[in-house]
């Protein structure tokens, strides 16, 4: 078993929480993990990414080689596209559809949407809206993780345990709401058809 995941977003959006949940689930399965993070300057509203590798064999490189990622999970539609050179030919893209517009030249919606048309292995969903509808406006990242969960090679119940582990400190309510967000993300059929 071997899954290479690119997590993408804009500094401050919360990609590291997704990484932490997957990491915790992978540890429960006794898998090897390597995960890069971005600290420092880029955290201030710049593009950020994390390479997350899980495997039942020892992992050599901390960075995922080009053309080898099984999945790109992105909290922002333009950011998913930035890491396309890492994606395998048959890889999946799971992205939030809500743009984070903090640059003056952000492309128009139909311009970036067009880029998604050539992919069949894609899930584009408004994770933020789904989370808001659940009454959990800050759990968009967990909704997205739920949507990506069938492609990670990790048991869903272990991801749930990961949620308990990572959000446990914040209280039972936060755990419950995120477990729900994970479930809804997995079951949602609210994918945008692009």
């Amino acid at each position, binding site marked *: 078993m071997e899954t290479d995941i690119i997590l993408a977003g*804009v500094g401050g959006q919360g990609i590291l929480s997704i990484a932490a949940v997957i990491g915790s689930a992978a540890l429960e399965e006794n898998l090897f*993990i390597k995960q890069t993070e971005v600290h420092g300057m880029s955290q201030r*509203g710049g593009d950020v990414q994390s390479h997350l590798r899980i495997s039942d064999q020892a992992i050599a490189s*901390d960075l995922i080689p080009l053309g080898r990622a099984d999945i790109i999970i992105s909290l922002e539609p333009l950011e998913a596209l930035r890491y396309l050179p890492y994606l395998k030919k048959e890889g999946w893209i799971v992205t939030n559809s809500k743009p984070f517009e903090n640059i003056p030249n952000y492309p128009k919606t139909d311009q970036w949407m067009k880029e998604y048309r050539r992919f069949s292995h894609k899930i584009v969903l408004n994770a933020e809206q789904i989370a808001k509808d659940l009454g959990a406006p800050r759990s968009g990242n967990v909704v997205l993780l739920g949507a990506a969960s069938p492609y990670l090679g990790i048991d869903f119940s272990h991801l749930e345990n990961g949620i308990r582990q990572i959000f446990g400190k914040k209280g039972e309510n936060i755990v419950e709401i995120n477990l729900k967000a994970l479930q809804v993300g997995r079951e949602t059929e609210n994918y945008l058809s692009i």
Partner: protein
Amino acid sequence: MNKQLFLGDEAIAQAAIDAGLSGVYSYPGTPSTEITEYIQHSKIAKERGIHSQWCCNEKTALETALGMSYAGKRTLSCMKHVGLNVAADAFMNIAMSGIHGGMIIVSADDPSMHSSQNEQDNRVYGQFAMIPIFEPSNQQEAYDMIYEGYEWSEKWGYPILFRITTRMAHSRAGVQTRELKAQNPCSVEENARSKYVLLPANARKQFKILLEKQKEFLQASETSKYNQLLGLPDETTDCAPRSRLGIVACGIAFNYLQENFPEGFENPVLKISQYPLPKKQLFRLVESCEEILVLEDGFPVVEEQLKGYLGLGLKVHGRLDGTLPRDGELTPDKVRKALGKEVEVYYSIPDVVEMRPPALCAGCGHRDVYEALNEVIKEYKDAKVFSDIGCYTLGALPPFQAIDSCIDMGASITMAKGASDAGIFPSIAVIGDSTFTHSGMTGLLDCVNADANVLIIISDNETTGMTGGQDSAATGRIRSICQGIGVHPDHVREIVPLKKNYEEMKSIIREEIEYPGVSVIVPCRECIQTHARKIKETKK
């Protein structure tokens, strides 16, 4: 079985604690910050009374670490690569005196300049000072080499330079920890004065001792389990066939090499994680191979040594002959290309993807400072704004485009003075509070002594912001420091940088530009990130 998911930085911190650390002395700098932060938040560190408060700069940090080592205790000093430039005076001379309690100096280098102004490779410093360098290839080795490093440092009587790069610092992996050791008691060596008083007579003796030690350092490298010659029998036999290519892989480059040979190496490989370079193994590799490829993250340090300046001897490939790019961090893909293997990319980045540079946070006080400053200096066509290292460096980017320089910690004030001396008017410096106490205060004294015509804006957010909000050394005391240095009290002006105060800010800036001497304006408002964090913590 006690495997935890650690950042490289955290593995280093935990290993130091487990090895009996008594004090960590550092100044924040990406990618080294998380080492000291981890120790600050560690329960065991608290129980053991491990000193971990941030220092004013890397030089004060390293010297304080030396004091602790002098008193027999194990100590750690962590900095980013350019931080070692600041601490270089201490660093070079600690190699002369030697140490007592084990000392490890972590240099976190930043090839590709993710969050830095250059990509210098501090292995050069280690060789310059002639002390051993450790360069782990993964997080487990980072843990083990720190844990064992303290024993080595005390056995040798010298500090170890522990060199990591961004990907090691900021990547997580499972790490097996070891048992917690006791801390050293306080003790001073009998011959301490002859070591630590580096008068010429003593220094000459100490240098001879250091030179003599080189043999021991080399022997340790040649027998280190972290340096491994793979794919060659131990001894040369006449009938052994020569390989075409031998590979030297330093630090994390070894992982990138492994990534490209999942079924095992096809060439002889020398993995290097400890310096001085293991001569015996290098000889063995060179005599068994026709050509050598050197993989190292950073400068071509090893490659240059093997090749020699004129390149007349060995056939060596790497960053110098274009087999690998001369700049930028190493990646598995660059290594793959260097090995002559194909990198398959299925999708390119679409044109629609625009750059998304970092920016000052919405609501940040630095924004208000630049808004007001930009308005005023429209009135002065020759105005130059010298800036510094910190979040406010982002004032270089749109929409502000407000600054003309960013060189090194503290250079805003001193450059402003030099430019003013040369005739630039108005000559303005913009520096943060933490950078000011790191390296700006001495420059301000130069300005005062020369009565230079400069305006210095100390944009005070009461924290070290860019690295994530660490304590700033002089929160609440910037005005008194400036006055103490000799700036006239009437020309140390304080203001809260908020939109409602724009008119007042603008008139203060105008007045102080027009004042023909040293003036300091301190716009002070807490960083919105640390402010938000504090509110969150009090809610808990």
